[in-house]
């Protein structure tokens, strides 16, 4: 059992959750994730750790409401107990002094990229942050991210911020402008990570992506999260979640992520009917 300290809607469909987890905090590093279950009947879902507070002993994550279990999570409030909050899982992101690093995030990835940007900045890198939102009202954590970035750019399709194109185009213009980018780290939906990796491929800049396949146990036991990277099968939960975006078999990942599409709709309808008749 773990206690929820906070659960708030940040922007439409995106929520932040802070959970009491003194043990996980001690070990948590950027790029790692936790597995959470909203209630005893829920799914085990992986969430990238977005922030932590060592004094308070708490872990913060941001999630997109998409299926039944995330809907259930979005219904929780401070003081509620959840049956599963386990971690930190996966390998931490590689944090070295690379020079100039561009971090790109969208959706829940805006938060997930934050600790990586912070750690890179602390290591003495020049951090260029590029965030993608569909519209200006979907941006959150701007202040937090600005505080750890040397440059801060937002791609939003409503022309509210500096760029109005989808993230890969903005990324490309940044790559042309900033010649010295040593590596790129992107987190967000699969499509965002895929397009980022494709945009950087011609430039041969190392592009890390934090993969988000379906998981069950998260400790390497089941193999649900297998992905093909460089022609080899890897388990995202123990070999990742960070992989070289230029080596990932994206078609397979898209396909596997859609494995339970019909079941997910069925499950949502069932849950909604039961709880909101």
């Amino acid at each position, binding site marked *: 059992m*773990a206690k929820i300290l906070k659960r708030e809607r940040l922007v439409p469909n995106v929520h932040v959750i802070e959970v009491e987890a003194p*043990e*996980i905090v*001690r*070990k948590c590093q950027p790029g790692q994730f936790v597995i959470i*279950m909203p209630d005893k*009947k*829920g*799914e*085990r879902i992986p969430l990238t750790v977005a922030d932590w507070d060592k004094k308070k002993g708490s872990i913060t994550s941001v999630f997109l409401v998409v*299926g*039944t*279990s995330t809907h*259930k999570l979005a219904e929780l409030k401070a003081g509620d107990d959840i*049956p*599963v*909050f*386990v*971690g*930190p*899982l996966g390998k931490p992101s590689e944090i070295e002094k690379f020079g100039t690093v561009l971090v790109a995030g969208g959706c829940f990835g805006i938060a997930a990229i934050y600790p990586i940007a912070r750690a890179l900045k602390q290591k003495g890198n020049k951090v260029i942050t590029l965030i993608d939102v569909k519209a200006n009202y979907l941006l959150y954590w701007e202040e937090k991210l600005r505080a750890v970035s040397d440059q801060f750019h937002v791609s939003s399709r409503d022309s509210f911020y500096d760029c109005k194109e989808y993230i890969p185009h903005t990324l490309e213009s940044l790559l042309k402008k900033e010649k010295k980018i040593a590596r790129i780290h992107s987190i967000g939906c699969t499509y965002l990570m895929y397009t980022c990796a494709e945009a950087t491929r011609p430039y041969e800049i190392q592009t890390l992506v934090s993969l988000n396949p379906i998981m*069950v*146990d998260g*400790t*390497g*036991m*089941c*193999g*649900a999260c*297998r*992905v*093909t990277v460089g022609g080899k*099968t890897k388990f995202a939960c*123990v070999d990742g979640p960070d992989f070289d975006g230029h080596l990932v078999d994206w078609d*397979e990942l898209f*396909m*596997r992520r*859609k*494995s*339970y599409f019909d*079941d*997910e709709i*069925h*499950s949502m309808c*069932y*849950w909604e009917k039961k709880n909101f008749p």
Partner: protein
Amino acid sequence: MADNKKDMPPELKEKLKAGFNQEWRKELRKSFPMKERMKIKRQKMPERNPDERNQDFFEVNRGLRAKAAVAEAKRCWDCANPQCVKGCPVGIDIPAFVKMIEIGDFDQSVRKLKETNALPAICGRVCPQEIQCEVVCNLKKATGTPVAIGNLERFVADYEREKGDMFIPSLPPSTGKKVAIIGSGPAGLTVAGDLALKGHKCTIFEALHVPGGVLWYGIPEFRLPKKILEAEVDYLKKLGVELRTNFVVGLTATLKELKKEGFDAFFVGTGAGLPNFMRIPGENLVGVYSANEYLTRVNLMRAFEFPEYDTPVYLGKNAVVLGGGNVAMDSVRTAKRLGAEESTIVYRRSRVEMPARIEEVHHAEEEGIKFHFLTTPTQFIGDDRGHVKAMECIQMELGEPDDSGRRRPIPIEGSEFIMEADLVVVAIGNSPNPLIPQTTPQLKVGRWGNIEVDWDTMATSMKGVYAGGDIIRGGATVILAMGDARIAANEMDKYLQNHKKK
């Protein structure tokens, strides 16, 4: 690898002899001659009708009734030199508990059992008795059918649980020593039970949200109802064992960090939680599962109750399970219960080489499972949505025996054919879980990623750290894991007695 043909330890020999010479046992032996005992037929385990049970997840075996159990116990000769005890990896005093059933003292019988086995209701169900205690039974040598020791073990354990008051043995005063047990599978639970009875404070760390390890996520409800597992875990809690679920040793805290927290000794029983795959094209198609994932979805996440539970699982029309072990049988029978029209085992060797228990194979056949022997897939074929729809297979013939002693399967050239399959479960074994070895560099690890131990003591290369079960063996059985645990617990107790707190 250790085997169970070792000589009995002298303490056990003496204990058996003392029991054998008890007056009541002498009387009992005299009261009913061996010849008469031989005339009693082995009592049949009542089973649910196959056509009914393959539609649900309720238990297949119903358990012996009291009258049948007493009759079965009468078959036992109460031998002076009981081979069955030698056959048991944990050295249960089998004649003693069986004779107590014969005289109708079920309460004493279960207490006798629990002196050596904290998990009798589980072992009575999942141990392969036919290759352990029952295979060496002297009655089997004489009549061909051994005493149904496993069924009797299950009977008394169920009797006590159903009666509602579990006997809790009196515990010795606390030694003040703390033991960390990593993994709550059969090995970990056994070590905890044994060391708690010796007065040590045991804490079990479990990565998942429920204790039991493979007993929970692997073995299906119809073979081991989870309420029975819960009851046995509950018994351990009553012995003072602490359980910490949602704790991944290696990641949440390393072994070294736990040591700093004041644990004096460690037992690593993290199992074979790394699924092996075929490594053939198309294996990552949607609808191809490892047995671990398939069974975890169904047993742990309760996908058989979807959508009441959120976790889904594929319900194939043509379910194919690759492999011939117990896990393969569990998977194929699960697929049938989830509604597959055809549920088929595809195995590369022939029937006799299948490592599954005969009882499980028999149950599977009764339930309408098909078997396709001497066949192996060469690739999986998907539809346009990336979902598996068929397998290309090749036929095999058996050559010379390999390292395992089983005849090696050799592909027959040109024998390829297509088999329809919209759900595939790969059940070809597991490798040891790498988490502890990876995060504990001081631990010596063998060729297969298994933790290396001294087989006489189960001690690893690190002082005060012991290991047992699938983490040292690769994929084996529940009772072998418990046997390792028994040896480790004894050694750990000795170690703790000499160990001074810093």
